[in-house]
């Protein structure tokens, strides 16, 4: 994995796809994200950012999910 390919989920641009690599943080929000199917190894696509810049909308396992950047910046992804 090249250094460039690694990013935070919050840094992806609209339309970009990536694979979740790591979740360095535990906590209620991250447990719920896991339960919603956002897990290491899952591929996600950033659909859009809300008009005011936060939250973001991602597509995961065929459905659309929103989360705030404050959570997304703790999720490490690999661009594909």
């Amino acid at each position, binding site marked *: 994995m090249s250094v460039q390919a690694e990013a935070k989920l919050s840094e992806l641009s609209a339309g970009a796809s990536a694979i979740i690599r790591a*979740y360095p943080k*535990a906590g*209620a*929000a991250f*447990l*719920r*994200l*896991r*339960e*919603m*199917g956002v*897990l*290491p190894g899952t591929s996600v696509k950033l*659909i*859009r950012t*809300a*008009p*005011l*810049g*936060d*939250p973001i*909308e991602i597509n*995961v*396992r*065929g*459905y*659309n*999910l*929103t*989360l*705030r950047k*404050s*959570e997304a910046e703790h999720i490490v992804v690999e661009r594909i």
Partner: protein
Amino acid sequence: MAPSHPVPAAPRVYALVGNPNCGKSTLFNALTGLKQKVGNYPGVTVEKKVGTSYSQHGQAMTVIDLPGAYSLAARSPDEAVTRDVLLGRRSDTPMPDRIICIVDSSNLERSLYLVHQILDLGRPVILVLNMMDIAAKSGFTLRTARLEKELGIPVIPSEAVSGKGLIDLKLAMSRPDLPLSRHAWDVPAAIAPAVAELQASLADNDNKAPLCARAEALLLLTDQDAVRVSGSTPLSESTSGILKGWQQRWEKEGTDWAAILVQSRYDAIGKVAGEVVQRIPSGPTATDRIDAIVTHPVWGWIILAAVMALVFLSIFTLAEYPMDWIDHHVASFGDWVRSSLSPGDLRNLLTDGAIAGVGSILVFLPQILILFLFIGLLESTGYMARAAFIMDRLMSRVGLNGRSFIPMLSSYACAIPGIMATRTIEDAKDRLVTILVAPLMSCSARLPVYLLMIAALVPGDRVPLMTKVGLMMLMYGLGTGGAFAFAWLFKRTLLKGAPSMMIMELPPYHLPRLKDVALHMVERAWVFVRNAGTVILAISIVLWFLSAYPQAPQGATPQEQLAHSFAGRAGHAIEPLIKPIGFDWRVGIGLISSFAAREVFVSSTAVVFSVGDIGEGKEMNIAPLRAALRDARWPDGRALFTPLVCLCLMVFYVFAMQCMSTVAVVRRETNSLRWPLFQIVYMTGTAWVATFVVYQVGRALGF
């Protein structure tokens, strides 16, 4: 004598479980028709819906529609109730014998997570694959026979909207024998010993059946910070001790036990889904195309503004006719009773207390119905989630999330439906904060007071348009600013909690099912009439009593009677309190009578200043009242309603909690008396302070 075929004495109990937005309510309505009972789970404000369905052989079956949930590891009171009913933790609800899981077929993997947790419970499960048509349109092919084989339970493809699959489901429900799932799934090695130990303890110390004990043991590992809602049986000490022991050990070792468990479930689901689901990638769906416009940086705002404008326009124009109609008929019914009974206390109690009270309940109904029609439409089409997505950034500034936006905005029309709409907010604390601040949004009942005060404030007969608009905007701005400021304050002090999050599904758009929306609308209205109505009726009678007793001597004018009554005395009694903010006892009577509804200030002020009948609604003529207010004097001859005092009165009405109907609804929605009382105190306290500042500063500046 024991029967050879044990026949269940009571009807079998089915629980209907599924994610939000999967078509669960539609299926429930289809299964039970109108044979449903809607109430609350005791101790929590979560809607309890129980209905009766009939098997192929005509046997009654009880169906409990459990609140939508993504996981049994509860995050909201709704999810906690679903979890507790399924685990048999609630004494007020029977533990279901069988479970119907309904999933959105176009979103099978994520939906199977909850199903996977439920299969562990060791009870017969029927899986309903809903929205097969939408799945097909999105390019999914599902091999249902294969899924049935993998899970070992009946799997029924359906389209709840058109009723497809309903007969198959009823056939499956009628089967005397339903197989238990034979889906094999290994608990990951890292946590298996803990699960075994917890399972043994749950069976021995908490009287759980073996399979249920295993399911609950697994659940305890992800339910770290369990939302304990009232009505749920707590864990035994030894079991919670074991749980704590393992958690401490794992924390030391750096094992993320919850993550391991979720991962292993999704691994098992992935294997099943790989066998069952095929997807031919298709182009952008209708939802993608709609969202590109609806959440667009420019069009998104225009659409949101247009939708909200349509809602408000409908409320203000459409609700007016039924409201006038109700007003008129309640009044003529009161007149009829008055003319057919002989004069006396009983007659006055009936006409001025009871009938007027019922009228003030009914008069809210058109607004509530219309607002809930729109909220139901916004919710069932999927637009509600988009509005929350767009507004989240703004709401997060004060610590709330986008879900609070619609309830707060609705409160501009009337706080009652706004507060009733907060049930869509998952987080319990966010919900409470929204309820606490919603009545600060200037509702339509404040308008008559603002208009009267603006008319009294400016010299001359005509109010310049700019003055009117400017003052109105100032009042709406004050209320809105106050609501956000208090939300910010409460989230930081009183209701401090985990930072709110915005993990929310954006469901595909659907055409609304009018029958479901209408049913929901009527249910909400009935809830209001039955629960809040009784309180409002009681308070109306008390308020009537306070203004009618003690009775003035024969021949007294209405003005003298009011001055003589308890309300009049109360006005005098509170004068020392309201004198520093510029009001005398006569204004005090108006403030007290406003508790029935804010607009009552206008009519009671007319009585206090003996203006006579000023009419109501559109025919209201405030010119004589305005003249009387301008002539009103303090005993020392100073004018009472100076422009400054008029402004003060408006500021007071922005902040003060003066609506018993709102109090009644808050009591119901928070399930406590503490919060509505707190609301009265903090809002009215703020009103006093704000008015005091305005009055004293204004006086110092020479107004």
